[in-house]
């Protein structure tokens, strides 16, 4: 294998010297920033020739569960592929490159002045459709997204073999109006986290732009109550987003580093609700549904305080504006404040009725070591199951603190698994543990598919514990 500086020269020759740099402290790993599909292909060809693994990066990507092989490799930074290639107003879709963020796409839509809007209500600065659909999965990102099948209409990807493929209607027609007809090959890329190919463009369905929008935060005396209301709202399918934020996160955003306990009178949770409508009567209709959901949930005891418009909250306290970027920007929320360079996130799907108990287990696990975690609970679209996002705290007092933290997390993973949760994102330290609690047959099928598409195991090689080329 030929590695080292002559690799840097070769990569520099492909994309330009200023777009190649060695990883700090790891000279065998090179970051390469191609600016076109052709450059991506040439970098892939070089990696193939030299049998080097290739990892992809894009804006806002959570890399907490990825490890670069020690032997070295190439990190393909796709952020310079940041063009909005097409906005189709009649068929309502946009074709974008990996580096386009939701915010960038919204800006472009506003510039074009049409009546199209994003399918998401929050537009955090660092996250884009590529990350949301191909890495994180739409279910966790926003209720309005449903899952990827509705909003990810197709992709153009470069496979590990160097072939370029298109999926969705575009494969047959050159237009991106839908996934079909025929076998849905787009699913082979959604949530595969880059392991099935390098997606260089993707088509995103757009919504008509609503005239009215409300984003509310509603303090609740009990999180069980807030979650019950959230589930009711999800089941109406009228709302664009709903989730529950326990009391710790707002306090951390306001400067508390380790809030140990909820104080008397403090809301136990905050229910976030987004809804949009094209007319005031439609908006009122949704508002009435919201009031009913709050009222019905309150019958079990506890109460909701008056709703707070998110815009007011952000104006009064800019540090709380980040609540409006959730759940899309979840992993970065606390890391920015804590100065932690590697965002860590533990996310799991589970029975919707078990969400609050799951969150309590998280509290208990981290509470035992005096490090509170950030938690966000939300029902899935339709309210069939729930998604629990946990932002583990940063260990600040050295190795002992860190060991204690990891031990607590290991216990937590086992507890959540026993309670019926499926962990799909986790800090890299727990990879082995999470693999152990995943169904063997399912893992095996994924690996077999993966080996068919990428026989040399070049793309994202450490996923599923496989060996690099």
């Amino acid at each position, binding site marked *: 294998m030929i590695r080292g500086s002559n690799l840097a020269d070769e990569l520099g020759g492909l994309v330009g010297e200023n777009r190649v740099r060695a990883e700090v402290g790891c000279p065998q790993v090179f970051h390469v920033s191609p600016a076109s599909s052709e450059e991506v292909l040439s970098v892939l060809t070089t990696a193939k020739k030299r049998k080097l693994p290739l990892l992809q990066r894009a804006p806002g990507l959570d890399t907490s569960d990825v490890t670069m092989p020690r032997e070295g490799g190439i990190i393909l930074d796709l952020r310079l592929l940041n063009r909005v290639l097409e906005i189709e107003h009649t068929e309502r879709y946009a074709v974008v490159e990996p580096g386009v963020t939701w915010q960038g796409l919204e800006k472009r839509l506003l510039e074009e002045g049409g009546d199209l809007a994003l399918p998401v209500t929050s537009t955090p600065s660092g996250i884009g459709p590529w990350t949301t659909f191909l890495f994180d999965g739409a279910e966790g990102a926003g209720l309005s997204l449903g899952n990827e099948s509705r909003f990810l209409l197709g992709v153009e990807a470069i496979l590990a073999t160097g072939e370029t493929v298109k999926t969705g209607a575009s494969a047959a027609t050159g237009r991106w109006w839908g996934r079909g007809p025929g076998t849905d090959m787009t699913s082979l890329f959604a949530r595969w986290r880059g392991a099935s190919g390098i997606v260089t463009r993707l088509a995103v369905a757009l919504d008509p732009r609503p005239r009215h929008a409300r984003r509310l935060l509603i303090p609740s005396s009990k999180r069980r109550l807030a979650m019950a209301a959230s589930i009711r709202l999800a089941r109406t399918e009228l709302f664009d987003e709903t989730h529950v934020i326990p009391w710790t996160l707002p306090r951390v955003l*306001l400067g508390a580093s380790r809030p140990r306990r909820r104080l008397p009178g403090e809301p136990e949770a905050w229910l976030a609700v987004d809804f949009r409508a094209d007319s005031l009567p439609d908006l009122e209709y949704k508002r009435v549904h919201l009031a009913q959901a709050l009222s019905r949930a309150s019958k079990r005891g506890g109460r909701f305080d008056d709703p707070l418009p998110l815009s007011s909250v952000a104006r*009064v306290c800019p540090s709380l504006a980040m609540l409006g970027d959730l759940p899309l920007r979840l992993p970065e929320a606390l890391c920015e404040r804590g100065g932690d360079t590697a965002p860590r996130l533990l996310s799991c799907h589970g029975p919707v009725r078990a969400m609050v108990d799951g969150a309590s287990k998280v509290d208990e696990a981290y509470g035992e070591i005096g490090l509170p975690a950030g938690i966000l609970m939300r029902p899935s679209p339709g309210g069939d199951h729930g998604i629990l996002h946990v932002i583990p705290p940063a260990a600040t007092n050295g190795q002992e603190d860190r060991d204690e933290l990891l031990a607590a997390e290991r216990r937590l993973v086992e507890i959540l698994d026993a309670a019926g949760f499926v962990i799909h994102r986790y800090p890299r330290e727990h990879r082995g543990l999470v693999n152990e609690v995943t169904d063997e047959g399912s893992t095996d099928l994924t690996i077999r598919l993966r080996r068919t598409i990428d026989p040399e195991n070049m793309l994202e090689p450490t996923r599923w514990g496989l060996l690099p080329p």
Partner: protein
Amino acid sequence: MPRLITSDDDDLHILSLLVRERLRRALETVDGRNIARRLRGRVRLTAGEMETFVVLEGRTIQLEQENTAQREHASASGTLASFFAICQGKIRAMDILRRQVRVSGNLLLLRRFLPLLSTENSNEPEEHND
């Protein structure tokens, strides 16, 4: 410049943290500092079931959560939504008449203090030292 004194961040509830954030922003402005320097008294703020006491002593502003035996000179209470309305300067006489915000005690002190919570920092130049 008046100094803001609070207990450990981790022991403050969300209302106290919000009040602290607003007072910090106010004290970054000339107007805010001028108002704060002239105020003396103990103000109780209530949002839902949370209480915060702001002790104004000219050179210092202290935030307390414990209801000490010391009596407050003025108080304003309502929901968290009312608190956010106060911070945006949106509370009108009608809100008080409708008892959406309840006020009591030294209303003159309250009238001077509440604008501190709605003062915005417009990057004003630093004023002279005390």
